[in-house]
């Protein structure tokens, strides 16, 4: 045998090294375990399984098309491949009273939540600094131990445990509330930027229902809409759209009319028969002006007004301060038009007035809502066909919740549990949510993705996706009957994830001092399968007396920032595709052209044509939008559908950390909002900020329009120049 010299030794090791490398870069199936198929499926044959869309509060029932396929999975700490039933597509459930076989763009894209390449596949423990997004994969045992350890440590001072989530109804939240109650912790904290707390409050005052209204659009003949993006993003858009389609059939020869009152044309405004630009925050004044005309002309039905009407001072006197001329001054809508609209509204019933979105996000939001409610009551549109009504509610009442704004004012808790809420992104920077969270010693998140808020977490316990777990919904509006939807998993989990309710139940059992009394269910599934009591049939709302704290007079909106320094009213709006930003991680929605601007993958500021001309701004130019609380940069889209003293911007982009598709893209308009609130509810008045606009540079390519370089060049098409 030849003696092995140094050189030879290196040569051999190099060869073995190469061989090893080659062997490991072949088919991945060679290195990872192939699990035994765990579903009984006929290859190539689709099975339809029910589920519920979790992306907004509308609670649409969906069906998932499940077909077999090979999936790379991660189970029990081990990657592998298995043949399993996979959800291929989501469609509306034809039997579901809200979705009625249809599904909106966002709902259809929900399937990408499950298959997102950046989804967390196992529990994570923070390994870097807070906010550095550095996490290490750990096992569930380890993760649960960590959680229970912390919970045990807090058991002595149970008030130091907080749970932050979106304000959703249903048994999942009931379970959370129960867990907290039995642990001794305060009620869950809820946060949603586009929450309609103001409207619920107004409805409680006007009609005795702390609830969002349902509109009988199918049978209405005249829809007067104050700012609500009914067909796009507000309340139950899919149900509204289905009803809108039916309404547009035209019954008995007459065609129903849709009038939209808003300062910036929304998708709903684009579909309206008549679109009225109004000064932001004066929608309620217009409503009162209409009421004035109705009453003066004697068009008011005998019992019109009633309880809701009493909310407005001077109601019985015919609202003398709201003559069309006075309202014209306030709103910018001509007196003649007010007269006409009032007559139409009173004559072509059933008519319904709707308020939602930006008009409520003013400091005078409650007064505005009360005025519109009163208008409905005036023409007798409450609880009738073609009018406004309230969906009977199931037995699970809305858990008492605390608002994030209130909690932020207090000292941070010792332990914070985080589920499906991203206030670091979605709250104004002036709230300093991030600083507050940094003071929380232990944060555990149940999120499937690392977003701005869960980047601050110490522990992430990834939940199943909705398709992999038991889901339910109990929407508060959208149909005439009560709807409670429960569905089992449409597919088996791909990864080492666990359902949040089950984790809570499990943690409850593991506590040193068990919950007293203990939660009665072993699993969430068990809870859901427990019988649900029938909602009371057509129960009349409990008549509550008017709240003394309610405003009784019209108030002008208070805007943050002086009109001199900040000439433009800033109007963020939920984007058609990305909603409040929680869907910015879904590539289908990122590439969905915005209906009015055709923009994809971008942020933009909408400016009026004349305003842009005055400021010397062309389409695509980059501007700085500055409020008294911060500034951002974004390209401009010049639009004829916005008033000259307003600047609108879609919410959704501007994520710092939110998967590969959303991170570092565009700007977040919520960050520069003033921390002003509607006083009676504490809800953020997100439409009450003034800004100034400065041109920074020409187009930098950050505005991506699907309509190519389309600037419609009318001068080219119209004549011989």
């Amino acid at each position, binding site marked *: 045998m030849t003696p092995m010299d140094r050189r030879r030794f290196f040569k051999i090791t190099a060869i073995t090294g190469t061989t090893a490398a080659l062997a490991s870069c072949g088919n991945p199936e060679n290195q990872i375990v192939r699990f035994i198929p765990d579903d009984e499926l006929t290859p190539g044959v689709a099975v339809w399984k029910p589920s519920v869309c979790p992306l907004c509060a509308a609670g649409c029932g969906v069906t998932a098309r499940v077909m077999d396929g090979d999936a790379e999975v991660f189970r029990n700490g081990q990657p592998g491949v298995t043949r399993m039933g996979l959800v291929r597509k989501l469609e509306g459930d034809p039997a579901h009273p809200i979705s009625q076989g249809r599904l909106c763009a966002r709902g259809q894209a929900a399937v990408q939540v499950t298959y997102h390449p950046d989804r967390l596949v196992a529990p994570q423990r923070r390994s870097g600094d807070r906010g550095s997004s550095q996490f290490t994969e750990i096992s569930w045992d380890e993760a649960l131990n960590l959680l229970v350890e912390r919970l045990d440590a807090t058991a002595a001072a149970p008030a130091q445990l907080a749970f932050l989530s979106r304000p959703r109804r249903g048994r999942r939240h009931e379970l959370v509330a129960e867990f907290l109650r039995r642990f001794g912790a305060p009620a869950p904290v809820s946060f949603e930027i586009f929450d309609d707390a103001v409207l619920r409050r107004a409805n409680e005052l006007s009609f005795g229902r702390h609830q969002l209204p349902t509109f009988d659009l199918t049978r209405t003949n005249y829809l007067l809409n104050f700012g609500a993006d009914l067909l796009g993003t507000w309340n139950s858009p899919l149900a509204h759209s289905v009803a809108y389609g039916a309404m547009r059939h035209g019954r008995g020869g007459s065609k129903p009319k849709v009038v939209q009152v808003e300062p910036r044309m929304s998708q709903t405004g684009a579909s309206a028969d008549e679109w009225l630009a109004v000064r932001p925050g004066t929608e309620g004044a217009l409503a009162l002006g209409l009421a004035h005309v109705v009453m003066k002309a004697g068009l008011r039905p005998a019992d019109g007004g009633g309880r809701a009407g009493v909310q407005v001072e001077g109601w019985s006197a015919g609202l003398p301060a709201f003559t069309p001329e006075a309202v014209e001054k306030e709103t910018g809508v001509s007196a003649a038009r007010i007269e006409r609209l009032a007559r139409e509204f009173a004559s072509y019933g059933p008519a319904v007035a709707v308020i939602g979105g930006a008009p409520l996000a003013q400091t005078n939001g409650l007064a505005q809502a009360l005025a519109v409610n009163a208008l409905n009551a005036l023409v007798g549109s409450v609880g009738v066909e073609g009018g406004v009504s309230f969906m009977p509610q199931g037995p699970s009442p809305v858990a008492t919740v605390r608002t994030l704004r209130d909690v932020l004012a207090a000292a941070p808790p010792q332990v914070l549990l985080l589920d499906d809420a991203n206030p670091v992104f979605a709250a104004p920077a002036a709230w300093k949510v991030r600083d507050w969270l940094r003071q929380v010693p232990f944060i555990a998140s149940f999120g499937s993705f690392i977003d701005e808020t869960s980047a601050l977490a110490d522990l992430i316990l990834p939940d199943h996706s909705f398709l992999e777990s038991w889901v339910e919904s109990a929407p508060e509006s959208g149909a005439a009957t009560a709807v409670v939807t429960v569905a089992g998993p449409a597919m088996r989990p791909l990864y080492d994830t666990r359902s949040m309710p089950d984790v809570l139940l499990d943690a409850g059992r593991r506590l040193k001092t068990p919950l007293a009394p203990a939660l009665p269910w072993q699993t969430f599934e068990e809870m859901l399968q427990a019988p649900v009591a029938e909602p009371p049939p057509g129960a009349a709302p409990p008549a509550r007396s008017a709240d003394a704290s309610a405003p009784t007079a019209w108030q002008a909106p208070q805007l943050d920032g002086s009109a001199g320094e900040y000439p433009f009213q800033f109007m963020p709006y939920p984007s058609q595709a990305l909603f409040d930003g929680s869907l910015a991680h879904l590539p289908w929605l990122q590439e969905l052209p915005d209906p009015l601007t055709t923009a994809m993958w971008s942020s933009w500021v909408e400016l009026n044509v004349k305003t842009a001309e005055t400021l010397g701004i062309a389409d695509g130019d980059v501007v700085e939008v500055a409020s008294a609380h911060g500034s951002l940069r974004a390209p401009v889209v010049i639009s004829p559908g916005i008033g000259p003293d307003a600047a609108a911007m879609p919410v959704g982009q501007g994520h710092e950390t939110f998967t590969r598709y959303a991170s570092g893209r565009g700007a977040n308009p919520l960050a520069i909002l003033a921390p002003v609130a509607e006083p009676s509810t504490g809800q953020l008045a997100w439409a009450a900020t003034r800004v100034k606009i400065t041109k920074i540079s020409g187009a930098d390519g950050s505005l991506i329009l699907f*309509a190519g370089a389309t600037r419609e*060049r009318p001068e080219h098409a119209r004549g011989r120049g």
Partner: protein
Amino acid sequence: MNRTRNNPLADDLVRPLLHTSVWFYGAVLVLASIVACGAAAWGYQLWYGMGVAGVNWPVFWGFYETNFVFWIGISHAGTLISAILRLVNARWRRPVTRCAEVITAFALMIGAIFPIIHLGKPWLFFWVAPYPSARELWPNFRSPLVWDFFAINTYLIGSLLFLILPMIPDFALIRDRTTGLRQRIYGTLALGWQGTTTQWHRLEAAMQIMAVAIIPVAVSVHTIVSFDFSMAHVPMWHSTIFGPYFVAGAIFSGIAALIIAMAALRRMLNLHAYLHPLHFDNLAKLLLLMSLLWGYFVFSERLTVWYGNQPSEMAVFWATQRGAFAPFYWTMVFCNFIVPVSVLSFRRLRTLPGIVLVSCGVLVGMWFERFLIIVPGLSTKQLPYSWGTYTPQPPEIVIMVATFAAMALLYTLFSKFVPIISIWEMKVGNQPHPPLPADEAEEQQSLWRARP
């Protein structure tokens, strides 16, 4: 005496084949490396996909098609002009024909590559050809691209034969004047040519027939290239004038290319004795004629569009007239009409440098013309929502530059291996006329006098 009369001519014209200067190697090296860059750019595109080019929705055609039309247009320099001159027996054609025909052959080859480069799946380009395949599917003869295939191939085959056939006697001449390897190679190329009277007659008869055949083919080729556009419902493409407009434009750019090539050859190969200012002057007059014709076509095209005032067409019209494409449009008008007409109309300005300069301008202008036909129409089609723009990307630019280098390279190599002026045709041109019989001479004289 024949021997003393013609041998210096043959010596002059064969000399470039026998003596190689350093400049030749340098030029070949530089040009070949540019061509290699182009090939690499194409390889890059093949690897990653058509997306590395600038084409997009809705401007699906861009630089590649522009260059395709441009080069096919250049190809009309040669065979068409040379065939016309042959048929009318213009005496001054003799030194010009071969350099012109070479342009045709190479420009066609280069031009024909572009439809392949521009394909999404270039490796399947042969699906355009009719051949019995396992798919049992034949090409769609209703497609202008299939017409292109037939037209370009017919023209290419015809032009190559038209170029090669008269080279055979010259190969024979070189065979007889060289030794060794050269003799063997040219001997093979000469195909055993002896120069018998039968061979001369057959050759001349064949050339005559081919000249007759190649003219309609040349006209049809560029007409069919124009059909690529005029068959589609794209604003300002769907036009009946495109056929003659394209043919005129092709001849226009072809003559300009020929002038440039001839001037280059004259200088590099010292052919001052063969390419006279007279040749340039004659070609310049032709160029002037084509410039006027081109102006006439552009005017007709624009006038009818403007008068028709169709919104979609007007969008393209204004985009070129005063919109984003206006700078190119006015450059084109300047180079193709204003400069040629104002320079070439005056004998004093019609100098050799002047003519060459004008020709260079015409090439630039005609390139823009093709670009302006293709891109603005696509970027502003009928539905304004789908309007778009086009910006060329590096691969497209590199490939375009490489084709110009390829043309220069092929031309350099050709003039290195083949006499760029047909020796035997020059000899024929130098033949002394035997005295005519008295009555014939009288007849000729009276014919001349009869002319006004």
